[in-house]
């Protein structure tokens, strides 16, 4: 199932490589993951002025982590976020949450 989601993400061209798992939350790895996976819609500090997506910068890390996990487990429904979060490992989620929560919007 995960493989299928991953393949569909590859088709969408959103995922380019794997980040090695099992380390402490890395803001640096999170930055890269955020640029590759999230920023297309959510931007870095702000989403595009013309975009309908919510900003992530400066949000609480625990909230970002739980939201991403809910999207990944599909306990929170969104076609696009269920797919995108499906490509993230626990480590990715921790890194991305650490990165975005530390940014000033």
């Amino acid at each position, binding site marked *: 199932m995960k493989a299928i989601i991953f393949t569909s993400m590859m088709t969408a061209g959103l995922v380019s490589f794997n980040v090695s798992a099992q380390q402490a939350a890395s803001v640096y790895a999170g930055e890269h993951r955020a*640029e590759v996976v999230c920023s*297309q*819609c959510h*931007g870095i500090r702000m989403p595009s*002025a*013309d*975009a309908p997506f919510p900003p992530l910068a400066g949000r609480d890390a625990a909230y970002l982590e739980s939201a991403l996990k809910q999207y990944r487990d599909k306990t929170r429904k969104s076609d696009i976020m269920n797919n995108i979060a499906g490509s993230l490992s626990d480590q990715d989620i921790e890194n991305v949450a650490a990165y975005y929560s530390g940014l000033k919007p």
Partner: protein
Amino acid sequence: MKITKKRLSQAVVTGLAALCLPLALQAASDDEHKYHQLFEDNCASCHGSDHGGYLAPALNAETLKGRSPTALRTIIMAGSFDTLMPPFYGKLSDDNIRGLVSHLKLTPKLDNPAWTIDDIKKSIKVYVKDESTLPAKPTFKIDDIDDIIGVAARGKYGRGEGSRAIFINSKTHQKIGEVPTGTAAHIIEYNPANPRWAYVKTDTAEIFKVDLYSMQAVRSVKTGFNGPGIGVSRDGKYILAGSFVPHNAVLLNADTLEPIKTFELEGIDPDGKQVSSDSGMIIGTPFDDIFAIALENAGQVWVIDLKEGFPVTRITNVGRHLHDAFLTHGGRKLMIASYDDSIVAAIDLKDRKIIKKLEAGCVPHVGGGSAVVVDGRTLGFGTNFGDCDKTVVSVWDLDKMEVVKQIPVDGGTESPAAHANAPYVAVDIISKDRRARTVQLIDKKSLEVVKTLDVGGHAYFPEYSADGKFLYISAGYSGDQVVVYDSFSLEKVATIPMESPAGIFSHGRVRYMTRGLSPDELAQRDGDLKGAKK
């Protein structure tokens, strides 16, 4: 079912010179009109109004043949990794995305739409009627107007609120002004004769005349449908703007933006075929009252004299698919990149002939180019973005016109930056993976890569501040900021947030002509030539 019906009716519409449309067909044509408009409003500035592609691939019946509608729909919805393609999820309804995909798969590449001198004239918009009401000095604190750095912020969607020309004081790294441009800003040129004027060209070929003293647009004109070519004459009186769509260039009055004359770009290419051509680079030179313009497909460089009748001298057989260029030797010599034969051709603008063709790596894209004087030699630096085994930056001796070295770098490159006072030549690695985050620095003396900066985002278009103390780099799409480094220590000193920054243009360019040259050296070396003037 709906799609099948649309296909059928559309085929009929295309097949008939419809005189009296039955209701069903009328509806289909309304649909076609609607999707054409959606394409114009959301896609055309990158993919081309003629569906023939521009910054982004051509989208028409032929190029999309066999492509899965589902895959296309996914790309439109989610965007495409490490490209400028943004996600349209939430901006376009799913029905519209599906409709657009089938529309694109049925639409042939369109003929070049006409955009005549009358259309250009009618497109002029005046934002400040009486320019004598503008302030006589900058309304912000700045030591020297050359300290201004302009950034073409594309905006995530290539249009809208995020699309602006953003001006920064390169000593304080603070924004001093933002000029909204409607669609993605692409090129910023400065008037060499009057420091207050800048000209911003967008991806939809609009040119904004910007007053840098009050940081606002005073006029604009639409010169075509797309194409980045724009140059300003050394006396600051003329602008030449060239388009991909349609295939022409237009000479404008730099003051009023009124069109004076159009030039239809056509000629015989190096393979003997008569072709109609996109406009490549356009350059005004401190050397003479002329413009040089590259005809991309015809492989010719035209020299237009700024005198009665604006006569054209055609230099033929320069190369296959010409693109960008830079000047050297007081603006007398033009180095122009030719994609398809991987050379840079040196042209003498006085004798108006080719001096030599130099090896230039793989698909050379010289960007703004760079030239530096090292131990008495003028060295030119050429980037290239081809996807070849050998990724190098070419270094040429511009006095002798020969290749000095091909420096191995990490990947394809798009634009070199240099400054007379800075020790390194910066090149942006654009290969589509983690390398895209980086910029490499070449030591001017040893001609070796000595450092790799991890800038973040899709890092490109490095530019030095006019005093050479700071290196500005766009952490482009997915980075959404400009990052500033100390030119010597290479420490990060500032970040400036903006939406999808691309090209960076120092006002100092009008003084040193080509990045890396010193205005003093220019004046000295070129003696009686006027050189780059202040």
